[in-house]
């Protein structure tokens, strides 16, 4: 176990930012902390890293209690903070070299690591640029390079793709996969569902400072009632016909979404065949018909009663 957080409580005066939060991270995995803005993801990371004091709970990193003076533990950690945190008056290369030099003393090794980090984030053509001359996406890449250049065993990435263009975002996400393949354990916080679905082996869903559930995406999706959603659009349909669709086996709910209907099914087989039989029997004409597996948003919706993107 690389990180173990047990019953962590953090209060900001009256506000409970972390409410008996728990987390366990195995070596070599990418774990996603998923939750809406303000749910406590960054606070959890800051507590784990001993930046913030906390009211209750235990934190262990690499099997040792984490404190502000745990320099041996810090030596093995990399952080990519949510805000771009680099020196405005140092160039791209100088920034990466400075942060890498805090961990790596050997000049030749550091130079090699810095070159590799520049290559890794694709900033080779910008090494003499000052951060203010870089676009938002390139600044984010620099922010990442400063956090990973020293090849840490454990990397915290706190919403690294916020306000990033699609090209840089894909670049960053592919880079994270590569880091993981090279042996780094990654703790990744985000409120983007697609990112955790694409990256993470395990996911912890957070809300109001609590870890609601954790598991692989398949495990999480298996926890909710809805197991399949079929989206169907009709040229014309009577309300009473829609009402009768609820009698199709395993249907648990029907929602209207614009001109379309989203029919939710609980666990069962042949849901699509049963729906098509109903359409044929009622002589309806459909304009659209496709089946979806539940998303993490459905998991979040069922657990909290609200959309993740609210």
């Amino acid at each position, binding site marked *: 176990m690389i990180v173990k957080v047990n019953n962590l409580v953090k209060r900001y005066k009256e506000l409970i930012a972390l409410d008996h939060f728990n987390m366990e991270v195995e070596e070599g995995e990418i774990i996603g902390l998923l939750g809406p803005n303000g749910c406590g993801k960054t606070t959890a990371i800051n507590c784990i890293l*001993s*930046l913030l*004091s906390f009211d209750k709970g235990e934190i262990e990193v690499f099997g040792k209690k984490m404190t502000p003076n745990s320099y041996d533990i810090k030596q093995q*950690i990399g952080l990519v903070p949510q805000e771009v945190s680099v*020196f*405005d*008056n140092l160039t791209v290369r100088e920034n990466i070299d400075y942060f890498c030099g*805090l961990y790596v003393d050997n000049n030749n090794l550091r130079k090699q690591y810095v070159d590799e980090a520049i290559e890794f984030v694709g900033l080779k053509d910008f090494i003499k640029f000052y951060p203010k001359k870089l676009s938002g996406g390139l600044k984010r890449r620099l922010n990442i390079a*400063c956090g990973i250049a020293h090849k840490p065993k454990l990397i915290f990435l706190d919403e690294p793709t916020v306000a990033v263009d699609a090209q840089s975002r894909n670049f960053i996400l592919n880079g994270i996969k590569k880091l993981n393949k090279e042996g780094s354990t990654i703790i990744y916080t985000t409120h983007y569902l697609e990112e955790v679905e694409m990256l993470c082996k395990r996911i912890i869903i957070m809300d109001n400072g609590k870890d609601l559930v954790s598991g692989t995406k398949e495990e999480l999706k298996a926890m909710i009632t809805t197991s399949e959603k079929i989206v169907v659009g009709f040229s014309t349909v009577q309300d009473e016909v829609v009402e009768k669709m609820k009698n199709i086996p395993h249907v648990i709910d029907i929602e209207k979404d614009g001109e379309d209907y989203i029919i939710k099914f609980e666990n069962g087989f042949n849901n699509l065949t049963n729906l098509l039989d109903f359409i044929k029997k009622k002589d309806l004409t459909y304009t659209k018909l496709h089946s979806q597996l539940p998303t993490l948003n459905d998991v979040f919706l069922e657990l909290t009663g609200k959309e993740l993107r609210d």
Partner: protein
Amino acid sequence: MRNLFRNCLYQGKNLFRDFGFSFWSLAYPLILSVFFYLSFSGMMNIDLENINLGIEEGNRIGYILEEIEILNIHNISQDQAIEKLNNDEIHGFIDEDLNLRVKKSGINQTIIKEIIEQIKQMERLNRPIGNYDFEVDYILDRNQNANPIIVTFYSLIAMVSTYGVFAGIVTVILIQANLTNIGARLSITPLKKYNFLIAGFIVALTLNLFANGVLFIFIKYALKIQLFNEIKYSSIFVILGNVFGTALGIFIGASNKRSHNVKTLMAVATTLILSFLSGMMGPHIKVMLDKNIPILGRINPISIISNNLYRVNLLESTKSVKEGILILSLYSILLIFSSYMFLRRRNYDSI
């Protein structure tokens, strides 16, 4: 040691390229020096050409005084002299025994006094006064010691020697996780806080001393004002000013959670007020304060520096040097210790 060197290198680069440093430490002192030079030079020129001096009718040196271009001689009685002195129509009055009567002190009164002193000295030496060119003697031989612009420049140097205050602020806010994002990032690295602060202190001192050097060269070669005749103690006070300024910056940076801009304004206000009280905006402020609140000149760090620069360079007096060094050192130690108390916390309630 290696870490310290790398921190000095990168903090130095970061600070040297910072606009705040370029402006406050490099450009602003030069602008102020030019401003003072222009304004005080103008004032001096006008006064030197218009010194109104009253003498008694038939005064035996009247014919000599009338030859001096900078003096406007008024032949008046003693009774008229009192009235004209009270009305500020004349700067001084000389009776037939060559006694000088003035109503207040000032540059013009000092000039009259020196002229009379020279005449008296010539008389005592039995030299032919009539052949002596007092104007040439006075204007050329008279060194610039009594020139108020010199006093003002010592105050300016005292003030800018404390401008390590800005670099001190930057150093602290860069390592404080609750003040900057970089501070938060650095706090989770193996970098020890004191390592970063010591490097910041060295960088602040070095760069501000460099900025001071640029100012001294500018004053000497561009404005052609010779300020330093005594190097040892002058250097000590300039360096101590730098130490005090940097310590003050670290204290301002560490003692509150205000933004960088607010902290900078606090530093500007503090140094400007202390400089104002030390006579930078005009020697009359200093004269008035020295007369009414003499202790202020002894405890105001900028007064301590400017007074000692004045004394060791112009009066060749080292009487108050030890006291000045001691007080400035105490201030610096106190500020650093207080800053340590604020900075010693290792994690935060909120960031």
